[in-house]
């Protein structure tokens, strides 16, 4: 039994890293432009299909494929921002919620028509690593590693590069940033692009170990909300920690009660944190 719990906990933590990447994208967009991106889930699902088509169609290694997914995701984010979000960026928040929801409907609508809703599967394996009583599938280990890498790069980008600093400045105070000569529209588009890229990357990683449909993104979008709130909305690094917390919960809870109670606890926790500390357990924005 303890070995089982340990396996389940490690499994949960590995997944948690990937959840973290998805949530980083969501929370970055929120922090910079105060938009809750309801198209986040479908974008994650598109990332999954990205891996599927690159691997099954072109035979590309899934981890190399991620590079391509990242580029496409960035561009897709620019386009979505320009078409759907830019006009409503200063409107009441309901407008941006509905605008991104409209994007989500379009992606799912076209996706359902083109790809149906039956499950797809990326037939890729890296064997597994055994350590004592533990057996970790190689794909999960790689996913966790890739997630840490992505988080590290994002951190370096936000804190060490000029565009990254511009993003943080706009996130902090858009008006003041504009007065300092930062082109805020471009920065917002860039942030949305990076957020979309992270969604696609998370999807691409998840596809290497779970079957998926075009509707699968919804679950991860909801998890991103939970994680975002746990780690502090607008704090991308907190999102990684939040992801680990969620993964850990998902690993531990099944040891004590039926697994179907996991979402009850997750969402109850989500609402509680919102009520008690709306800025998140780890506090503020980036």
């Amino acid at each position, binding site marked *: 039994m303890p070995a089982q719990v340990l396996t389940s906990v490690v499994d949960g933590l590995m997944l948690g890293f990937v959840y973290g990447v998805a949530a980083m994208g969501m929370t970055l967009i*929120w922090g910079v432009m*105060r938009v*809750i991106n*309801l198209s986040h889930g479908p974008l994650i699902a598109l990332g999954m299909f990205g891996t599927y088509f690159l691997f099954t169609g072109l035979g590309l290694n899934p981890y190399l494929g991620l590079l391509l997914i990242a580029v496409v995701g960035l561009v897709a984010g620019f386009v979505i921002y320009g*078409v*759907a979000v830019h*006009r*409503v960026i200063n*409107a*009441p*928040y*309901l*407008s941006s*919620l*509905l*605008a991104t*929801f*409209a*994007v*989500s*409907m*379009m992606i*799912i*609508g*076209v996706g*359902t*028509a083109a790809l149906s809703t039956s499950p797809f599967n990326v037939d890729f394996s890296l064997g597994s690593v055994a350590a004592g009583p533990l057996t970790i599938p190689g794909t999960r280990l790689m996913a966790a590693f890739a997630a840490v890498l992505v988080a590290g790069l994002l951190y370096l980008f936000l804190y060490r590069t000029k565009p990254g600093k511009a993003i943080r400045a706009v996130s902090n105070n858009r008006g003041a940033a504009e007065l300092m000569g930062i082109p805020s529209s471009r920065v917002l588009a860039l942030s949305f692009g990076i957020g979309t890229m992270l969604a696609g990357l998370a999807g691409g990683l998840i596809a290497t170990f779970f079957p998926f449909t075009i509707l699968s993104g*919804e679950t991860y979008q*909801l998890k991103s*909300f*939970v994680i975002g*709130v746990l780690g502090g909305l607008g704090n991308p690094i907190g999102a990684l920690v939040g992801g680990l917390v969620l993964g850990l919960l998902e690993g531990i809870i099944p040891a004590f009660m*039926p697994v*179907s*109670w*996991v*979402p*009850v606890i*997750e*969402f*109850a926790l*989500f*609402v509680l944190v*919102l*009520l008690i500390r*709306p800025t998140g357990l780890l506090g503020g924005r980036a």
Partner: protein
Amino acid sequence: MKVGNVGAVRPAASAAVPSIPARFWQRVSFWVTLAVVALLGAVAIVSQRDTLREAMFTLLMFASLASSLNILLGYTGYVSFGHIVFFGLGGYSGFYFISKQGWSIYPSLIVGGLVASVIALLIGLSILRLRGAYFALATIGILEAARAFVANFGPFGGSTGLSINFSVYRQYGGPAQALWTSFYIMWVITFIVVIVSFYIKSSRFGLGLLSIREDEDAALVMGVNAPRWKTLAYVVSAFFPGVIGTLYFFKNGNVEPADAFRLQMSIETIVMVMLGGQGTVLGPILGAATYDRLRSYLLTSDLFKNLHLAVAGLALLLIVLFVPAGVVGWLRGRFAQLRRVLE
């Protein structure tokens, strides 16, 4: 909330200076709205066709769901993304009394509504402290938590849900007749929702809600008991979804978690309110009618059948970007004379 407030302050002015014309126009707008609802129901009754009756049932159901959401969203300015949770929880409770306790539909409807209201009171007391997007997020969380909880809740049948024996319909004159009865009840509910939303809008309570929407802090300073009034708005707007849920599941004969707590349906209701014009009485009815017709046209047309969601999404995006006040709000803004009639 800056959208749809064009002329929203007008009732305030007319209340301060009681002038007969204003009241007269208010009455006209009231009867126009009721006439629209009457017409929507009468179409099905005159034709006596089952397909049309089902279509109108769905339409009226969404019209009343949208109208009750409008009390919170349009009047008070709080965006509940998970309002369908009251449809689910109220519907489950009402259905429980029909299927497990052998109650008739009528008391069960009331119970469904009351349960939804009590839950809304408890939830509202805590989450209405949150503002803006935080509130919206919390409502999504509550919807998902409720869905997951009900799927684990024994008395409600867990993940398989509850169903009723067909013999139950015998007391309503057989299954076919029960469908007509459900339709009539739905029609009556829609009338009641319209009357209630109209009454609220032209009352002091409604004015308080509108002031909360425009600027909650200013409203507080002016002596509006915002915490109490917005909670009351939440409770009222939760009651009808509870009633409607009970009726809907009674008509279907079963209820399961995936059906009762659909985020998609919740957001569609918001879209209807936005489409018609939030904060107006007629708006949600028109919005629901338009959206529902559009959806079923897309679903049945050969060209768009597979892409109906994408087309609906495109329509939504165009509305959000270019007509944020909705049809009724746009008309009111464009033609000042219409403001009197379109309440």
